[in-house]
């Protein structure tokens, strides 16, 4: 067991515990902070996998953007300080059963298929990723920018419409 593997185990445990907390805590605000921890942990995992650019993007967009949005969402919709009477819906046992089935399928997949072993290299990736965006992935890249524009307008339209109706 080398040091990288140890770091991986610690980080994975951290991520999974944080995710477990997100899933089980009764308070949505706490869940949001748990998610923050989990997302940070995943950025740490990326660092271990030598994906430096991705780690930075993860921190910038997930931790800095999406998580803030989630906290916004919680604040705008939740009556803070009041823990709901019922946390989970009527669906708890079917949900557990479905999750067990999915877990079974995933474990089967992980165990049966001969996955290629990793040959980690620690070269910086940012420049090459940038070049791939402008060459091989130019079309998806442009489509993504159009998508973001559409989302921008769409989100405004969806969030506004009901205000006008009232």
């Amino acid at each position, binding site marked *: 067991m080398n040091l990288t593997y140890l770091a991986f185990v610690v980080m994975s445990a951290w991520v999974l515990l944080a995710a477990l907390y997100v899933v089980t805590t009764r308070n949505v605000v706490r869940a949001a902070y748990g998610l923050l921890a989990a997302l940070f942990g995943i950025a740490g995992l990326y660092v271990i996998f030598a994906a430096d650019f991705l780690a930075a993007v993860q921190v910038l967009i997930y931790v800095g953007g999406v998580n803030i949005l989630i906290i916004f969402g919680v604040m705008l919709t939740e009556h803070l300080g009041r823990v709901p009477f019922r946390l989970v819906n*009527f669906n708890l046992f*079917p949900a557990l059963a*479905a999750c067990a*089935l*999915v877990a079974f*399928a995933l474990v089967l997949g992980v165990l049966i298929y001969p996955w290629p072993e990793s040959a980690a290299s620690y070269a910086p990736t940012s420049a090459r990723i940038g070049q791939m965006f402008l060459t091989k992935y130019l079309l998806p890249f442009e489509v993504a920018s159009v998508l973001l524009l559409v989302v921008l307008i769409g989100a405004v339209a969806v969030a506004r419409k009901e205000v006008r109706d009232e």
Partner: protein
Amino acid sequence: MEWVDTHLWTIPLMPLLGVLVHIFLGGTLGKKLVGILACLLVFISFGLSVVVLLRLLELPAEERHLLDNFLPWIRVGAFSADWAFRADTLSAVMLLVVTGVGFLIHVYSTGYMHDDPKYIRFFAYLNLFTFSMLVLVLASNVFLMFIGWEGVGLCSYLLIGFWFHDLNNATAGMKAFIVNRVGDWSFLCGVLLLFWSLGKYTGTYTVDFYEINRLAPELPAGIALAVGLLLFGGAAGKSAQIPLYVWLPDAMAGPTPVSALIHAATMVTAGVYMIARFSGLYLSAPDAMMVVATVGALTALFSATIALAQNDIKKVLAYSTVSQLGYMFLGVGVGAFSAGIFHLMTHAFFKGLLFLGAGSVIHGLHGEQDLRRMGALKSKMPWTWLTFMAAWLAIAGFPGLSGFFSKDEILWQAFSSEHGHWALWLVGFIAAGLTAFYMTRLVVMTFYGESRWPEHAHPHESPRNMTVPLAVLAVLCVIGGYVGVPAILHGANYFEHWMEPAVTWAAGHGGAEAAEHAAELGSHGLEALLMAASVGVALLGIGIGWWMYSRRRDIPEAAFQRWPNLYRWVLNKYYVDELYQWLVVDNLLRLTRLSGRFDLAVIDGAVNGSAWLTERVSAISGWIDNTFVDGAVNGVAEVTRAAGGRLRLIQTGRVQQYLTFAAAMVAIGVAGIILWPSIQPWLAELWSGAI
């Protein structure tokens, strides 16, 4: 002065600073400080432009070219498009015109807009306009130029619709923007085609103007022609040429200093400048140049005739601008790039002065713009009158004033250049006569004759900060032409030699060849003859105009009554706006309505139809239900009903429940696929066992 070599970026920075300060601190600074700051910053830009000019003068003629690459922008492989400014002889002239005339207009605006509630915003827009135009003229590559190009388009929209609470003004702003978009589309297509074809045929992907001009002769003729025409489409939009000139007269809806800025110093000259920038490209596409020259000449004549009958002082000047821009395109179109830019410069002086003078008149008459309610203002507004005289004589081509030299240069080149033709000269010649005539009409109806303004109007001279810019521009109108005195008048034609390094390319060079051409013709005599002819037609136009409108007002009246249809036709600008309305706008609206109806009839119809179909099917199935199932054994009915009841429970409307089923099914499916290799032999055995 080498300092300026690496600090060209400071020139556009000044107005940009102004924009930021006005927007964020304008309220705190107050009107007075904002006005002073706006003028001061543009003046600093002007000072820096003068430094650039002096620096260029230090260099030997062939090396007059500064490149300041201060910020990397797009770099992919060997291709690069950076924030790089280039000051060569061409952009130096433009710099001086933009910042110099722009500065005077800023000063004038502090007086003209003094009582406007949106004063601060106005100066923010003016500075933004100057900034965009400076980026446009300084840009060393097409992409950067496009930023300035779009910037002036945006600012023109903001400024034309500045008084947007009046619907007409807002519409005029939108019209300018939309018509410009048509041109911009063409421009962008041209740029992209140029970029692609340069890469394909010369192996170099580049957007730098000098590189493009150097490589242009290697392009196939057809592609060079297509690129030239597409780029000219952009120029026609921005510089208001047929068929895209319609936005410019409507743009008079903006405040008058804006008209002066847009139509004299900045925006509309962008098209001419762009053609001159691509001079190498155009020289390798002679057919495209022919189109440019022809469109320019026709625009000059066409809009000059419209200007004859307009009664709004600013409308006359607007059509006159379109006409003068036509001259510039005629100049660059016959390869006389320096003559075109020379006329651009003198036009900036006299047209800027005419607009500012008209603004002064309008200001003095409390917003009156109709020539029929003016007259006899000479004694009431002496400064305005005096300066207006200078501009009038300059635009009419009176010998010795700036307009005379530049217009004559263009006409001579149109006749004698190898890209020229006598017909082009003739069209320009007629337009010159018409110009003299309608400008005289304007002057007489404004300043002479009997007063036709109402008694209580009390016209007054404008304040000092409006008349001083007028006086400066008037001086420039008078002396501005002496930088380009042609050889035939024993001048050195300094301007042409100055411009030469920026417009000389492998494909040929603009300007100077005409002189050689003329020498071949052995026709100094011919040049003198043509010059005399254009002086004659200018004087004739002035004379007839003066006589008709100050002595014999009955003649135009009689003419109108004799040919009322012709008059109405010209007055309504040949109904071109109506034609476009009918041809383009109405059809677009019709298309919109059609697609709306398509939506209603076909799409909604399909939805309704499927609903109807479902209803029918369910009616049939209900009928089957009633006849067969009810007729069948009761137990079967019970089973059916029970199953239906059970199945209905699944349709709860609760998304998470649906999702649970979906996830479970997907998991089972995936597990099945993964396990298939191990299940399959067992199944096969079972199967064979069964048989």
